[in-house]
């Protein structure tokens, strides 16, 4: 078990017309090879910015502090050229929405062909511009068809039809599988799935969860989602985010059965009430420019204490995970 990813005190800021949006405020995360980490939170909590920052694609935001260690290397100050080498092979992203994440002007085959060129090491401009749709003779085709068949495109005819089609012709489930295939083609060390089930209907969702479940067995995975069911099914560890911070983390079982942070509890309760349907929880809009002092959740917290509005809670290590909440900071016990 080696440590694949470590994020230490990450701060990411965005300069906007209204002021500086502090999207990530001191994120701490760790991931070992083979783990599947779920990042849970609602819109605006900073989870998207976090995963983009891992790949240094957070522009126009800037990494204002902290460090990110991937596979033993610190990557926040590495050159863009170096990052390009890392992207796709080291870290790969499965985007959320296939209808916007695929270039509408190129066929699926052409887009996959481009990735195959990269796989062969042909990354020059000429090769990239002329990468056509792969056929049986193209190097890497075998790998492509194996990958796609593991994702459900079993027979050759279906495969050919897929390669010839354009993004707007795909259904939700098919599109999602294409996105997964694209991420897996270069056999990355870490795969990040951004809201993999949100844009799907029920049938496709079940399929996708299945796929991702299998994926988590043999790849290191980070899954970003606000759905408890998805994370419970796929991940063995989970981190809950609010206001640009990780408020609670630990093994999936422990966090979901015995949530410590008040926000986690509210989030879980509301989803149970909704019985698996996606709802968005309006705890209260958090102003990302002007944070209230102290704990960002305190204005909405049912268990807020006076200290919560003054001091930011530190991360406390407890049995089975960490939590950033004043309720626990006094009675902290260390793991041996």
């Amino acid at each position, binding site marked *: 078990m080696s440590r694949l990813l470590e994020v230490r005190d990450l701060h990411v800021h965005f300069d906007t017309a209204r002021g500086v949006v502090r999207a990530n405020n001191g994120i701490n995360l760790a991931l070992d090879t083979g783990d599947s980490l779920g990042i849970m939170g609602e819109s605006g909590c900073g989870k998207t910015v976090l995963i983009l920052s891992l790949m240094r694609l957070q522009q126009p935001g800037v990494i204002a502090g902290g460090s990110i260690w991937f596979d033993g290397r610190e990557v926040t100050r590495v050159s863009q050229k170096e990052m390009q080498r890392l992207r796709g092979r080291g870290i790969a992203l499965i985007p959320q929405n296939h209808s916007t994440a*695929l270039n509408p002007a190129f066929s699926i085959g052409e887009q996959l062909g481009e990735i195959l060129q990269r796989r062969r090491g042909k990354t020059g401009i000429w090769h990239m511009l002329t990468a056509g749709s792969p056929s049986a003779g193209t190097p890497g085709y075998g790998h492509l068809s194996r990958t796609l068949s593991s994702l459900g495109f079993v027979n050759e005819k279906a495969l050919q039809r897929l390669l010839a089609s354009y993004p707007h012709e795909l259904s939700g489930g098919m599109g999602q599988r294409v996105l997964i295939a694209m991420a897996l083609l270069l056999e990355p060390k870490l795969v990040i799935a951004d809201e993999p089930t949100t844009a799907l209907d029920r049938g496709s969702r079940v399929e996708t969860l299945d796929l991702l479940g299998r994926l988590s067995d043999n790849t290191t995975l980070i899954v970003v989602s606000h759905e408890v069911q998805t994370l419970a099914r796929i991940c063995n560890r989970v981190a809950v985010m609010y206001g640009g911070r990780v408020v609670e983390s630990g093994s999936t079982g422990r966090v979901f059965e015995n949530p410590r942070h008040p926000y986690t509890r509210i989030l879980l309760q509301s989803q149970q009430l909704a019985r698996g349907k996606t709802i968005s929880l309006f705890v209260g809009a958090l102003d990302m420019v002007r944070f209230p002092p102290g704990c960002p959740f305190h204005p909405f917290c049912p268990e807020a204490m006076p200290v919560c509005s003054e001091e930011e809670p530190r991360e406390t290590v407890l049995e089975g995970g960490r939590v950033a909440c004043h309720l626990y900071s006094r009675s902290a016990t260390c793991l041996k």
Partner: protein
Amino acid sequence: MEKHVHPQAVVAVKTGRYLLVLLLIITFNFIIPRLMPGDPLLNIIGEEAYYGAGGALENLREDLGLDRPLIRQYFDYLGGVFTGDWGYSYLYMQPVLAAVAGHLGWSLILILPAIVLAALAGAFTGSLAAWRRKTRTDTFLTGSLLLAYSMPHYWLAMIMLFIFAFLLGWFPLGRAVSGGLEGFACFSDVMWHMVLPLGVLTLSKAAYDHLIVRSSVVSIIGEDYILTAQSRGVSAAVVLFKHGLRNALAPLVTVTAIQFGMLFSGAVMVEVVFSWPGMGTLIYEAIAARDYPLLQYAFFIITVCVLAANLLADLAYRWLDPRLR
């Protein structure tokens, strides 16, 4: 879910509309001389013919059928337009059709290469400026091209002519041919004469293309598929010029078509300065001589070209965007 709007049907509808516009123009050309102050005969045949005809004026009136009922005249006119009987130009001492056709060719020799060269240049600089938005590269490129775009075409032409022909003597002072040459020598002679006018037109059009492409690419940069491509480790150059620019092509084509009229007008002005024997010179001389038939048909043929360009662009647009095929 398949929604089939037969592309042939759309093209047919578009063509129909353009033909309608053409009919409107022809009708307009018919009515205008009869509406304007003064003797309709004067308005129809132009000043030189009118004042030069002397006693034969009444015969002319009869010849042209001006004593017949208006409807009759209209259909005669329509017939004339379609059979190529566009009247006679006393300025050039030729039938109007011949004069216009001859000049049109020369105009197209300038305009068509200008469109292509300008699109290539403008697409490149526009993408670059969009990628490096608000940096010095963008400010410099967009600023200077905006200035070039703001200059009247003919004024820019005068400056270029002054610097490169008068002062430096690198290029000829005007016209399209030096005369008396054959074959390849004639061809390269025309090329030599073409450099300055083509340069002016290309610069003006490229400036506009730059602005359009820059604006398109700036919005495209925010699209998810750009992020996806980047996440795969594709280099910035490829992301920009393959993924980004490809999606900016369709709007560029549309805008080029819409602006074709302006481009033609610009070419007209530039030709005057360079004495290039195209539509510009034709119009300039026709104005001075008040040769109305020439002016009317010049307007007509330019409109035909603009409509043809629009139609081509519509087709190209459908071909470029796979979602519309």
